[in-house]
């Protein structure tokens, strides 16, 4: 390999302090890498852009788009649903969210909102009967223990798992005799994306590791992820392990794909990323369609997968959450090898060196570095191009939302008129598809930018299904009235 020669050129960084596999507190890392740490801390103060960015109190999506309340009727998201903001907030925003305080949530929620991996490891080690000392916990990543811990706590109660976090040393808090509090809970931190020994980027999230392996084992063509194709070509031996097989450029997206993805996260089964059939909206849908919840403790059948019963209509539906990684996968940037980090963590020159901006944020607040290195056009022109894309998407979201809302009215009306479950079944199927697709694009956070044509296609399908459901209702109404008359 030609790059081997340069590798010698990289002088090992000078560690001011040691960090290890338990160092969830970013502070000591910050002593080694003050620039990255400083940037990271800035994730508390983003501006607000047209369709993204931050606020002191991020705006409520439910207020801005009242139809969302009807879409989520019967689900926690109808209580509160806000714009995302900087990484520094992820844990506190979750803790105070009425979705968590008013509804019993699962421990898996913390998978993406906290530096939880050492806690998984600790619990995994404990389950295996190993003695867990701070030193043992710090020694290595210990994949098996992490996976075991992940499986063990995902379905526990949120509050219990949050407490577990504080029972894991974080590398800074000094344990006091008799105090069960061994560390603080931290939002996403250096250790989630970096190997503490070498600083190489890596993925740590069990949900992602299992999901990407399922994807590799599927036959979905993934031209934007060449290492998966290579792994398949090499005979698909064992598991696809992103930390072994992925290119560095792929890892620059995978670290984000650990969390910015569609998931199932509640107490009926372990946290799941639905990538077994591929990364397109219908591949994910197919996986949910095929999923059966596992038997409960008493041996009762779990039944078909669903996220919630839509309150107005009584239909069992799916909830889509922030599928940024999946939508990006369908776009031209992914195809051209452009990673999340290229845009959201662009290089910046600091003194005599280049560093990745750890102020992860909307690229629209940083167009110069995020876009203009590749696109040599004026900043305003880039803004305008993004607006064209996002405005078209928003226009279609509104169109699909109108159709969905009319659909709810139509279904409610036929139900009141006495339609039978049998008659309603095909209509409910259409409803589920329509809602899934609308939610998919509206809860994706780039307003279509990550894959403009795909976003429009998905919304076109949503409109189609919603209006088909309406037509079927009217037809049923006609019949019912006829029969009734």
């Amino acid at each position, binding site marked *: *390999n*030609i*790059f*081997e*020669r*340069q*590798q010698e*050129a*990289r*002088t090992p960084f000078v560690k001011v302090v040691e960090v290890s596999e338990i160092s969830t507190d970013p502070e000591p890392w910050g002593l080694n890498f003050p620039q990255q740490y400083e940037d990271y801390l800035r994730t508390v103060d983003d501006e607000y852009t047209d369709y993204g960015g931050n606020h002191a109190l991020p705006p409520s999506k439910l207020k801005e788009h009242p139809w969302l309340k009807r879409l989520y009727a019967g689900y926690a998201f109808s209580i509160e649903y806000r714009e995302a903001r900087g990484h520094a907030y992820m844990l506190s925003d979750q803790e105070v969210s009425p979705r968590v305080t008013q509804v019993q949530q699962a421990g898996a929620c913390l998978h993406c909102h906290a530096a939880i991996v050492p806690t998984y490891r600790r619990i995994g080690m404990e389950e295996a009967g190993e003695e867990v000392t701070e030193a043992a916990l710090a020694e290595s990543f210990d994949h098996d223990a992490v996976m075991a811990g992940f499986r063990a706590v995902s379905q526990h109660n949120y509050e219990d798992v949050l407490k577990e976090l504080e029972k894991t040393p974080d590398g800074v808090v000094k344990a006091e005799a008799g105090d069960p509090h061994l560390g603080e809970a931290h939002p996403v931190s250096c250790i989630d994306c970096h*190997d503490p020994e*070498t*600083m*190489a*980027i890596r993925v740590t999230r069990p949900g992602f590791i299992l999901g990407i392996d399922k994807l590799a084992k599927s036959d979905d063509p993934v031209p934007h992820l060449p290492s998966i194709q290579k792994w398949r070509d090499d005979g698909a031996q064992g598991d696809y392990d992103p930390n072994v097989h992925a*290119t*560095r*450029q792929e890892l620059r997206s995978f670290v984000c794909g650990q969390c910015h993805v569609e998931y199932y996260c509640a107490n009926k089964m372990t946290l799941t990323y639905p990538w077994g059939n591929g990364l397109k909206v219908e591949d994910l849908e197919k996986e949910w369609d095929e999923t059966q919840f596992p038997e409960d403790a008493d041996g009762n059948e779990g039944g078909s997968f669903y996220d919630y019963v839509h309150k107005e209509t009584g239909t069992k539906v799916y909830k889509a959450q922030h599928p940024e990684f999946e939508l990006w996968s369908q776009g031209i940037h992914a195809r051209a*090898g*452009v990673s999340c980090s*290229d845009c959201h963590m662009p*290089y910046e*020159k600091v003194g*005599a*060196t*280049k*560093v*990745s901006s750890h102020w992860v944020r909307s690229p629209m607040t940083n167009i110069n570095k995020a876009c203009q*290195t*590749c696109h*040599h056009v004026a900043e305003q022109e880039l803004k305008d191009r993004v607006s064209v894309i996002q405005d078209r998407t928003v226009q279609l979201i509104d169109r699909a939302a109108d159709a969905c809302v009319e659909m709810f009215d139509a279904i409610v009306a036929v139900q009141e008129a006495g339609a039978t479950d049998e008659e309603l079944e095909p209509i409910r199927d259409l409803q589920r598809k329509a809602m899934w697709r609308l939610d998919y694009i509206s809860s994706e956070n780039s307003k279509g930018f990550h894959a403009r044509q795909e976003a429009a296609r998905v919304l076109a399908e949503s409109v189609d299904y919603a209006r088909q459901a309406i037509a079927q209702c009217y037809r049923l109404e006609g019949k019912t009235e006829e029969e009734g008359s």
Partner: protein
Amino acid sequence: MSDESSPPQEQVTETSTAKSAFPFRPGKAVVLFAVCMGMLIGIGFFTFGYGKGASYLSNNPQTCANCHVMQSHMDSWQQSSHHAVAVCNDCHLPHYFLGKWVTKADNGFFHSLAFTMGNFKDPIQIKPRNKRVTQNACIHCHQDLVHPLLPDVRGQDMLSCVHCHTSVGHAER
């Protein structure tokens, strides 16, 4: 401009020696032979095979444009951010001795062959081996700045500089 990397004048003499050592006779067998040998010691072949092959030995960009197929690259280089700091050879030749001469031989031979046969892609598509040469050239000059981009651990790959800096050597690329 990196003077230390420009080929010293005496190399030209070395070339003529090589030329007499491996007389070039047209014919399929020789072409085949040349393809193999060109990789290692073929410095002589292109000078012989194509009159202006000696341009490879000069650092003057104009001599690359002796071939009109190189004209647009010359033009786009002139408009690039680097025309004042790097000439063709700074980017398209390895910055260590052996590699430099192997590349000269290799490219020199294939350029001549391709140019004569006319069976190349237009626009020209750079080949993986030559991509590595340019990548190394970037690093050679910008080593300190791009230090954090270098592999963290042995064997790790790294990003291609032109993934982002598309128009450094050639404007509007």
